[in-house]
């Protein structure tokens, strides 16, 4: 019963959706502060390469995860320095980050002896729950059959949601993203909030990238994220900048990334490109729908000050 296509697909979707969810949650924090970071793909690649270095060097996947998170946070801080500090266009700085991340991760992957690309699977995470629970019919593989990071991602979605909508710092964060001049007048340190949440976005993307290489692929290859960072970026507007919607959508998008194999098993031939394109098409459709109904869907719209640099002298 646990081997049925439906159960396997759902369980697989949760695994594949987890790095997407992590990166998207981070980007929600960043964008809620009014900073758009297009560099997720680059940060995930850096997280991925450092993740595997940490995991292979110590044999402990958690070390890899932390190393990946820190490295990607460093990248995010570069973006913050440019976009918040120097008021460079956030789009330009974010895209440059993708280029740097792609080049740097590929270069670093070839430096160790033997190169990371020649190494076999590394120490990965074990399932959190005992076998007996994971063997339960249907709910076993779907609910209990995962490694700890899957549950960490769910917990983070809850945390980010509570933080955004139920705490004072979360309120300050949203104020900075909606109307930085007013936030500033209320004594909120706009630049500080933006720096911190851009760095946090990097931490989340780095964890996502490290999880991808340590757990899902088990190996490093150039450009291993293969567009995961861009799907995570799409998840943010798709979810209306909301954490719970983002993680749910991440599982759906995760399912789409490996659904074509599943469908082949049951004898349905759908071109993989058609499924792969769906996240992007759906995001366009959602955006246009929201802009068609300005009134009722306004609370799903982008933060008003998104990607607008804040210049105190010009408020």
């Amino acid at each position, binding site marked *: 019963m646990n081997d049925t296509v439906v159960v396997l697909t759902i369980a697989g979707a949760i695994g594949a959706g987890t790095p997407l969810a992590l990166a998207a949650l981070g980007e929600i924090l960043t964008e809620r502060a009014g900073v758009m970071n297009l560099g997720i793909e680059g940060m995930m690649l850096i997280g991925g390469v450092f993740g595997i270095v940490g995991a292979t060097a110590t044999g402990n996947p958690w070390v890899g995860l932390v190393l990946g998170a820190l490295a990607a946070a460093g990248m995010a801080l570069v973006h913050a320095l440019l976009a918040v*500090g120097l008021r460079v266009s956030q789009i330009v700085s974010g895209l440059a980050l993708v280029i740097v991340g792609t080049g740097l991760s590929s270069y670093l992957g070839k430096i160790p002896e033997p190169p990371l690309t020649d190494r076999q699977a590394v120490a990965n995470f074990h399932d959190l729950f005992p076998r007996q629970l994971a063997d339960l019919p249907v709910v076993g593989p779907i609910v209990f059959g995962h490694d700890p990071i899957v549950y960490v991602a769910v917990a983070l979605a809850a945390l980010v949601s509570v933080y955004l909508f139920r705490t004072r710092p979360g309120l300050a964060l949203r104020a900075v993203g909606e109307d930085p001049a007013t936030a500033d007048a209320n004594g909120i340190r706009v630049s500080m909030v933006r720096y911190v949440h851009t760095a946090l976005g990097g931490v989340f993307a780095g964890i996502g990238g490290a999880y991808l290489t340590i757990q899902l692929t088990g190996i490093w290859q150039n450009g291993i994220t293969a567009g995961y960072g861009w799907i995570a970026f799409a998840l943010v507007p798709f979810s209306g900048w909301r954490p719970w919607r983002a993680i749910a959508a991440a599982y759906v998008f995760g399912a789409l990334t490996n659904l074509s194999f599943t469908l082949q098993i049951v004898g349905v031939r759908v071109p993989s490109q058609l499924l792969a394109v769906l996240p992007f098409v759906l*995001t366009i459709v959602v955006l246009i729908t929201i802009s068609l109904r300005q009134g009722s869907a306004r609370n799903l719209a982008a933060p008003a000050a998104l990607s607008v640099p804040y210049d105190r002298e010009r408020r």
Partner: protein
Amino acid sequence: MTATRRVIVEPRGRPSLFTRVLVPFVAILGAAAIGALLLAATGHPPGEAYANMLESAFGSDLAIVRTLISATPLILTALAAAVAFRMKIWNIGAEGQLYLGAIAASGVALLGGGTWPAVLAIVGALVAGVIGGAGWAALAAFPRAYLRTDEVITTLMLNFVALYLMNYLIFGSKSFWRDKERLSFPSGRFIPDDTFLPTVWLRLHIGFVIACAVALLLWWLLRSSTWGFDLRVIGDSVPAARYAGMQVPRTIVWVLIVSGAIAGLAGAVLVLGTTHALQPGGLAIGLGYTGIVVAAVSRSNPLTIVPAAILIAGLTNAGTALQILEVPNDIVVLLQGLALLLVAAAEFLLHNRVRIAWRPASTAEEASAA
């Protein structure tokens, strides 16, 4: 009572020509220095690597030709980005518009090559590329102009739709574009020889001349035409433009279509001049994204874009020289990214003076982050 530090940022007047040339130059040297540190730290002598890179990018006629060929589509994607940025419209869809241009152009070249007169086939393919790119941009242009749907996200998403469309044509189906004789090793069908772009100097094809001509034309249009004036006014203030009677939504649609058309031309030139087939591997190399950054560091000035794109393209070709030294050539991508980041940062320092002032704590205001 301790003194606190306060970072003061003050705008400069118009920077002198000397400063304007010096600052980007120093930024590029800075990128090279960071790269040198990384090379040295990983056991490769930087001096030797850089000498070889320079040699293989600009050291001989052949090297220069290779660099100019690589620069050609990059000049066009940067121009595509620049024209929209003038109006503060962010078209980050040049990547996808380029693919659509390549699909349309290779389609016409495959159709007409060998049967139509060569000039007709080439011009037809170029025009098809322009239309393909413009049409793809129009998908984002109308929602942006009439519904105010964020063009950053829609144009970005459309890049992936275009990418998967191109991949589908080559890898996922037995389409008109696919080489049916090599089904196990998917490849685009090669266009007939007579549709290759004619060369002007050694292997340098006419695409480079076309790109420079588009740069000149755009420079003139943005500087001296009413259209260019409208673009600037709308970019600075939509209400002012509306008050002056300008058709804001219509201009938005047009600027995005023109932007997409130029990106589509880049795809057409790339297919007819370089890849000679719809090859996802040779087309999907991030030219649209790099073009955006090139446009930004050139301050959207069409005439500055040409040398900037040539410099960045030179780096791409420098990669081959490194393999001889057993240096992973991925360092060139990193250097490109670093150069673009640092030049973008230098832009700020060009227009603002940053100094650190010390003052007693009693009068210190909250230091604004640099």
